């Protein structure tokens, strides 16, 4: 088990190195940062001097290697645009993104799973059909549009909720939270729904199809034959056996929720890492882009690791097989 974790962590280093390499190979196509960094009257000599200072004249390989070496020393460099350490900026922005993503996933799970179970049990029910239709909207409408529509209805027309930002935040050390103030909670509602909607429908459809599958199996029939209550059968046996794929998908989705909060964050001007990344792309702020991409790669690796560990908790067969070598499949 321990060896398994170590191996996965070592793999994650490899993943991050690769991501950084691809990122640096791509940065050449993003544009040239110099014009964003100086005013129009800055002389040619000063511009060239700046290119030299920032190492932009070096080859991709040299730039990449320098970045890897510095990162290994814990130095993520300085943002070109903000002239501040990238590490500080990421730490400042991370709470906003994590808070939004986690709330969204919780929302998606707590609404998606019951809806999935319900539609699985009563496939032909009227309500189930409504749920299924709603889920089509969630799957097919782009996040951007959903966000703008929510803003229009609840922000501009009804004026119930703020249209942008994170409201007032309370700081605990390096962590800032908007969960403790009224304006922070109000500001969270629309972005969280926007971000959760796709995941929610995905989870609901997944749970539904898994439930339909499981309900057909023999042990469910036996369970019913034993005279167990509906509740015990549906939740104790059926739902529990649908959980392995649900955990996998939710775990992977948490990664994408964090990574793809970018769109939601830009629509709602949410001060998270995703928006910082999008702005960095527009401004060709290479240190910020590189750090963000590596961090997201790390998130994915860690989340996958946690998902793998959760399998052990949920699937008893893996535990009996014993340890790291066991795979189920």
């Amino acid at each position, binding site marked *: 088990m321990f060896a398994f974790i170590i191996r996965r962590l070592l793999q994650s280093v490899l993943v991050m190195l690769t991501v950084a390499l691809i990122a640096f190979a791509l940065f050449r196509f993003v544009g040239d940062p110099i*014009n964003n960094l*100086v005013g129009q009257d800055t002389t040619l000599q000063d511009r060239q001097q700046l290119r030299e200072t920032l190492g932009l004249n070096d080859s991709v390989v040299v730039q990449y290697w320098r970045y890897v070496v510095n990162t290994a020393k814990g130095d993520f460099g300085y943002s070109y645009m903000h002239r501040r350490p990238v590490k500080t900026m990421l730490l400042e922005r991370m709470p906003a993104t994590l808070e939004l993503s986690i709330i969204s996933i919780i929302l998606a799970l707590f609404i998606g799973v019951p809806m999935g179970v319900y539609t699985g049990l009563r496939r032909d029910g009227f309500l189930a059909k409504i749920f299924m239709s709603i889920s089509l909207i969630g799957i097919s409408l782009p996040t951007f549009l959903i966000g703008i529509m929510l803003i229009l209805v609840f922000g501009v027309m009804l004026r119930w909720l703020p249209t942008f930002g994170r409201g007032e935040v309370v700081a605990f050390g390096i962590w800032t939270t908007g969960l403790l103030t*009224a304006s922070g909670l109000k500001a969270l509602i629309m972005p969280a729904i926007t971000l959760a909607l796709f995941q929610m429908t995905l989870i609901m459809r997944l749970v539904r199809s898994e439930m339909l599958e499981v309900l057909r199996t023999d042990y469910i029939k036996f369970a019913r034959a034993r005279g167990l209550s509906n509740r015990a059968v549906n939740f104790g046996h059926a739902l529990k056996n649908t959980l392995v794929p649900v955990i996998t998908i939710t775990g992977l989705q948490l990664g994408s929720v964090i990574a793809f909060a970018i769109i939601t964050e*830009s629509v*709602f001007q949410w001060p998270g890492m995703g928006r910082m990344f999008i702005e960095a792309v527009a401004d*060709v702020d290479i240190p910020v882009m590189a750090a963000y991409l590596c961090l997201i790669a790390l998130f994915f690796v860690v989340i996958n690791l946690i998902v793998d560990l959760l399998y052990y908790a949920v699937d008893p067969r893996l535990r009996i097989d014993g340890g790291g070598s066991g795979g189920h499949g």
Partner: protein
Amino acid sequence: MMRWKATAKATAIAGALAVATLMTAPTAGAKEFKWAFQGNLQSLDPHGLFETFTIGFHGNMYEPLIGYDDKMNVVPMLAESFTQTNTNTWRAKLRAGVKFHNGNDLTTDDFIFSWKRALTEGSDMKVPARKIKEIKKIDDLTFDIITSNPNPILPRSLLILYVMDKEWSVAHKTEAATNLKGGEEGNFANLNANGTGPFMVTEHAAGVKTMLKRFDGYWQKIPSNVTKATFTPISQDATRVAALLSGELDLAYPVPVQDWQRLKDAPGVQPLAGPEARTIFLGFDQVRDELLYSNVKGKNPFKDVRVRKAFAHAINVEAIKKKVMRNASFPTGLMVAPQIGGFVPALNAHWAYDTAKAKKLLADAGYPNGFEVTMDCPNDRYVNDEKICQASAAMLARIGVKVKVLAQTKSKYFGKVLSQNNYDTSFFLLGWTPGTMDAHQAIEPLMACRTKEKGRGLFNLGGYCNERIYALAPMIESETDQAKRAAMIKEVFKIHQDEVGHIPLHQQPLSWGVSDRVTVNQRPDNVLDLRYVVVK
């Protein structure tokens, strides 16, 4: 478990308190102003970035010797008087009793310190700062500025050289301008401000929001009654407009011109439009012997003035104004706007729209069937930039010139067409506002021949070159006789227009959305000066 409960309770109380503080009614007389711009306030360092929005924002906290009033007239700010005593010397006398936000008095030493700071490596204000050769201190409030060359527009050049407090900067180890390379020095001024302006920074979360408070010790009376101001950068147009419509903002800019009708129809908000001092123009590669992106091989059609003239006659600026700019642009034939010193009203008319004439000119030049060329165009830098390029391409198609528009985001566009990539373009669209609001700042970078050593023609992307203009540019810089100077500027514009060095299209409109709660002053350089914001 008990302990956890106690903590939870304490947290709940803290939360409730926070909520209660939020809901407390604002104190009587407090006037709050909230606004949003599309870009970030990248740094608070007044010497960090020579860019209009940034220095315009800094102008609320920091001040120069001479500044702009609401109409962009040059008026004394920190200098009570600033006069030329002989060709290379200017005598400045600082206003007595001006205080910095930390209570320190403004003195000659502060100005000398700020000038030297603007010359440090990280500074982007080196160009104006280098115009000063030396500063001689006379007393605490008086000093002489010595320039290396006679410079009639020195006061204008120093408009953006903001004065910092020497003691404060030394105490916080920010004696050098914030360096792009990083490093700790300069970082304090990057995130904190201490100027003489009417507003002090109370909170600056870079890229998230910036909060300002009125400085009670400000030295002059101003129209503004704002006591607290909050700035938020909102990059998405739709979000910015929605926030204005929902009443959460008092001012949002820029607003897409397409949204003006929406603002007019909504209660409580209005669009505020005006001419910007920025001129949008087209340019051609006139240097290479063969164009990089064209089907004409072995020669460069743009070297022939008839081809350039044909293009000028083929483009219908009035149609661009009507169809693309929602009637809000100001068509022009000149490279500078009316707000710029040296503007020549007599030369402002655009070439007459005449496709027959254009076709004939092309035929005379040897291209009766036209040719193909690729046009470089930004798609997020100027108002409707990509649409202007597409409209121009459609108009040029009528005289047989097939234009392929390559529209890209500004970082890619500038990365391609500017000096660092060896001006990699054949035909392009660019916009320009002279930083000093004086014609020389358009003539030297845009119209003078490109010379690396002299640093002229840095933004002359097409390499247009006329010996006479090249000779006139430095003369205009140092000519102190205003009548002679105006005549030289006029000569430059006349030559440039006759030779169609570029094709000026229009001045683009400023487009702000303003709540009825406030009145603001819209400066032609798109700067919001809080000194003129009044909240009802």
